[in-house]
């Protein structure tokens, strides 16, 4: 599932046109690169003309001196051109690749989470590193050859034509055929290289998993079995790579023969012309010089063909990501009436991978009220949250969701989310300082505001106890902090954002008693004067809620306040008994009640 291709989303746009669209902004440098390579080509060809002149005027000393001067000035032009070719190629290729990577990142920000779920992060990393590198190295090292080689080839050819056209025409007659044949033969390489990169992406996912789950890997001694998995993936990579090499080898032999035949013909026919006296020595010297500029493009042509195919394999994998449809972001801004109903679900039905997760869910969240979601795991609580965040695209005709009276389809996602604040169980922190992590709630918050938020989240005291205080770096995924500390920082972040609607996936149960009290207090602070939708685990939260929705298999089976529901004696009562009643009894017993 993770690695399936989304063929239906692939644009029809040819992959090289797409790559070139990233090169386009730097066309100035591309043009410099092309002009410089043409200059080098011209210098090389011009040298041929000079040779011819020299051979014809071996006794004219003045002529030789002036030619020597021309050569000298050509050397200087050549030096500059060579420098410019390399420099500008590096410049436009690395900038184009930077833009491509950056636009990939901003694209990934915009695709719905349902799309992201299909890719393992290790696979995406592999695309953005290895595949991008293959593409860049092509642009940097081979792109200019696409211009230089034909020019130097035609130049040399043209010059030779002026000496003896028959010889040249006959020699190169076979070339068009050769180009078509090698082009045709190298096509399967693209498929192989795509497969190699796909499998590499999969092995990368295993490696990423091993690193993220290293505690479990060691505790359960999974080094061996995961290694075998990785090994199996690598074997696939190798299998495809070797198949590609075999193909390459098969196409090299006819390639060499086809491309070397002009030279062979040239030697044979040229020799004949010399023998019958149609070709003089001067021409021969010129021929011998220019021949290199015919051989070089010819011998590089099959290599370039293969390179183009392999590169387009990598480019396609990048294009696949960027052609994933994005969530709606171009809707015009909506002005919000503060009196409007913050959240309204009407007959919302949602299916994911053909499995129905929400079935006809309707509820209304009024301003400054709290609605609690209760139900077994897998009953659809988190899906409601995710739909409200706009993470998943809802099919039309499956009910409607309204935020502040406007249908979800009318909202620009970025705007809509600015009205939402979220505290989830999985507290994602970034490996920057604590102050930065909190400030992510509102980027331009002052130091004082950050501290105020941290205080409200009961986080200030423990932060100050850390040796570097607010400047403490939290490590990858906040690994240097304990669960309770991470949660309080996430709460501080949400407090700082100060959005009218708060989505809360109640996190308090993962904490020790002391942190729990602190976090609970922090949550009460953040829930004050806000419209709250909460996935509730704690009785106190449920009891304080204005409405409790009991979910079972995607449906709201009961609704009402805690007391209404208990009086009703249905699903909620059963849940309640199972969990809270036992705990309560125990605590009452301990107190001797």
């Amino acid at each position, binding site marked *: 599932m993770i690695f399936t291709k989304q063929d239906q989303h692939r644009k029809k746009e040819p992959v090289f046109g797409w790559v070139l669209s990233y090169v386009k902004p730097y066309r100035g440098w591309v043009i410099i690169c092309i002009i410089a390579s043409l200059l080098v080509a011209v210098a090389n060809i011009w040298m041929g003309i000079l040779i011819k002149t020299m051979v014809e005027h071996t006794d004219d000393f003045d002529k030789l001196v002036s030619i020597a001067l021309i050569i000298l000035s050509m050397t200087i032009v050549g030096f500059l051109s060579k420098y410019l070719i390399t420099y500008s190629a590096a410049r436009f290729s690395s900038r184009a690749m930077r833009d491509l990577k950056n636009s990939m990142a901003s694209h990934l920000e915009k695709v719905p989470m349902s799309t992201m779920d299909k890719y393992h992060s290790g696979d995406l*990393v592999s695309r953005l590193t290895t595949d991008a590198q293959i593409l860049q190295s092509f642009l940097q090292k081979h792109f200019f050859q696409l211009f230089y080689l034909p020019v130097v080839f035609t130049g040399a050819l043209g010059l030779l034509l002026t000496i003896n056209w028959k010889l040249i025409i006959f020699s190169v007659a076979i070339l068009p055929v050769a180009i078509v044949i090698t082009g045709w033969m190298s096509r399967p390489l693209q498929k192989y290289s795509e497969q190699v990169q796909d499998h590499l992406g999969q092995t990368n996912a295993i490696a990423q998993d091993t690193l993220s789950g290293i505690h479990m890997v060691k505790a359960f001694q999974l080094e061996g079995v995961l290694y075998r998995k990785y090994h199996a993936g690598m074997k696939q990579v190798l299998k495809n790579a070797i198949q590609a090499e075999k193909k390459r080898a098969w196409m090299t032999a006819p390639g060499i023969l086809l491309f070397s035949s002009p030279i062979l013909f040239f030697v044979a026919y040229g020799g004949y012309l010399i023998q019958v006296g149609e070709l003089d020595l001067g021409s021969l010297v010129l021929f011998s010089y220019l021949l290199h500029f015919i051989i070089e493009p010819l011998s590089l042509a099959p290599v370039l063909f293969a390179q183009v195919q392999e590169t387009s394999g990598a480019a396609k994998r990048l294009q696949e990501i960027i052609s994933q449809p994005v969530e709606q972001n171009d809707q015009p801004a909506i002005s919000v009436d503060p009196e409007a109903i913050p959240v309204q679900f009407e007959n919302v039905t949602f299916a994911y991978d053909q499995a129905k997760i929400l079935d006809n869910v309707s509820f209304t969240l009024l301003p400054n009220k709290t609605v609690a979601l209760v139900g077994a*795991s897998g009953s659809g609580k988190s899906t409601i949250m995710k739909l409200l965040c706009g993470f998943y695209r809802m099919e039309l005709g499956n009910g409607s969701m309204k935020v502040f009276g406007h249908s979800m389809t009318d909202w620009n996602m970025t705007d809509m989310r600015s009205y939402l604040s979220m505290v989830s169980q999985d507290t994602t922190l970034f*490996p920057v300082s604590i102050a930065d992590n909190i400030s992510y709630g509102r980027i331009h918050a002052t130091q004082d505001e950050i501290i105020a938020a941290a205080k409200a989240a009961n986080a200030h005291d423990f932060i100050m106890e850390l040796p570097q205080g607010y400047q403490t770096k939290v490590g990858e995924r906040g690994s240097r902090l304990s669960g309770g500390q991470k949660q309080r920082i996430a709460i501080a972040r949400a407090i700082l954002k100060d959005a009218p609607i708060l989505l809360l996936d109640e996190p308090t149960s993962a904490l020790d008693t002391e942190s729990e009290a602190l976090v609970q207090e922090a949550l009460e602070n953040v829930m004050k004067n806000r419209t709250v939708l909460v996935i509730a*685990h704690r009785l106190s939260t449920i009891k304080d809620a204005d409405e409790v929705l009991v979910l079972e298999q995607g449906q709201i089976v009961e609704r009402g306040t805690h007391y209404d529901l208990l009086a009703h004696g249905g699903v909620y009562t059963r849940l309640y008994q199972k969990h809270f009643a036992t705990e309560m009894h*125990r605590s009452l017993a301990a107190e001797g009640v």
Partner: protein
Amino acid sequence: MFIQNVMRELLQLLSFMKSKKRAYILGLVGDGIGQAAVLVSLPFVFKDLTDLANTKDPALLTRAIITMSVMFLLLSILSPFFSYIYRRCVRELIANIRLQVYQRLSKLPFDYYEQHHSGDTMSRLGNDVVLMENAYAEQLKTLSIILLSLIGSIIGMFAMDWKIAVVLLLVSTLTLYVNTLFAKSVRRIGDRMQQQMGMGTERLNDFLSGLPIIKMFHLHNVVTARYTEANEEVTRSAIKQGHKHGLLEGTNFFIQFLSFGGMLVFGIMMVSKQMIGLGVLVALVQQQMLVTLAFLQLGQVITALQTSLAGASRVVEFLNEPIEPEEYQQESDNEQQCESMLKLEQVVFGYNEATSVLDGVSLRVEQGQMAGLVGTSGSGKSTVMKLLLGYYPPASGTLYLLGKPMGAYSLAEIRSMISYVPQDAFLFEGTIEDNIRYGCLDASEAEVIKASKAAYAHDFIMELSDGYQTKTGERGAKLSGGQRQRIAIARAILKNAPILLLDEATSALDAESEYWVQQALTVLMKDKTVLVIAHRLSTVEDADVIYVMDQGKVIEQGRHVELMRYNGTYAKLYEVQQRKDRAEQIHSLEFSERRVSPT
């Protein structure tokens, strides 16, 4: 000096080849000879043609044609064959290097994982290995062709005219020297660039794992910007590298074009003074072209190789990271016995030297007992578990397992004696069945199902459309928290180890899941020696012993009743937790008792 360094690193690259070294070199040299032979023979063919113009001897023409045909035929037969041989070697080698890096990546001590971002390690496995592949597949091959054709043409030139040959050789040496001058700084930039790429991958990982938060808090300008910043730095280095490369290419062109032109001018003068024949000049022009091209390429190769070597050295550095030892050396006597199943004696430990997280912790759990570990966050509870799992050796003090000091076991033995259910139930990419089976790899399907039934996971698994074959997604993202936890418990049940470590396993669940998870844990804990980190004190009320930790020390110990009587920290913690619950619950109990009869 520099040449020596390059040679040393080249040899190091070759040493990776090991058993494949011969095949690789054979392929490289075979392919190189084929290509070089064509290049070297061309001047001779032209000499024949020039002589033909003078002598009109048809034998010369035949020889020229035959030489050319034979060379091309040889090339078209040899080149595919030999290039296949060495390219295959490269593919195999790179797969092998990836395997080695992967293997190392799972065997490092925990220090490493805590010090290094996973993105950096992933970058070594990706970006840096790709660079190494370039070195083997492209640069070394070009190098071999250049060297072979140089040898060929130098011999050829000496055969034709030694004076010009000497001049050419001097120019070539100069070129080589100039190249090495550049290579050093190219390498420096290459080193920095690979490091920056590592950082880019780190930030890419943060970006990918933080996407929901990025969306919700609109963090494009900060988190995404961190990634694009890293991209910017790489780009800047790449452009700097382009500048250096460009200078080098230009200089090479300058030297070669000038020497070529100079040779031509002087050659023509010599021809006009009848010091050499035109045929020789034609051939020399050919040779010179060859040498020119060769040296232009040599410059490119040496600098490109620097970039690859920068990648290679990061791979080598990683492969040289010391792995986790087989066992920890402990100062205590390994023969020493103790009665307890699990025991810590005066254990001191700190993640760095400045602060100690555990400050003389002693605790023990007898066979079949259940012990609770409570305390505030940061008191050292999780660290105790990590030491028991052998993630770190203690700074001082001794840990005992099954009556023997930990030093008496290998780390593999220690970990096979312990089942561990962490707070964050990590699931691997793959099916549910795979994830459960990780508890015991050779378990039968029936055993897997039995374990998942015992973990109260079977029913929900069967309700999923693909049952046990359902893919869990990255980090188990496609399952809910309660489902993940029960799969982790099923995994632990399947492992069936005598010691069980539970870290906040009942956390973060909704009411019904928590109920099922509790049931599952009861099954899991039966007949096992259990150490549990508890946050809901109700979990450990029935424990045989409770250790209360504070700031790296055990400050209270005893059964629940004893600790309550003692009226210390535990009692206070308990009070805090109970007071709140009670206030709410008494009321609701009164209310509900009329309608439902709690059991």
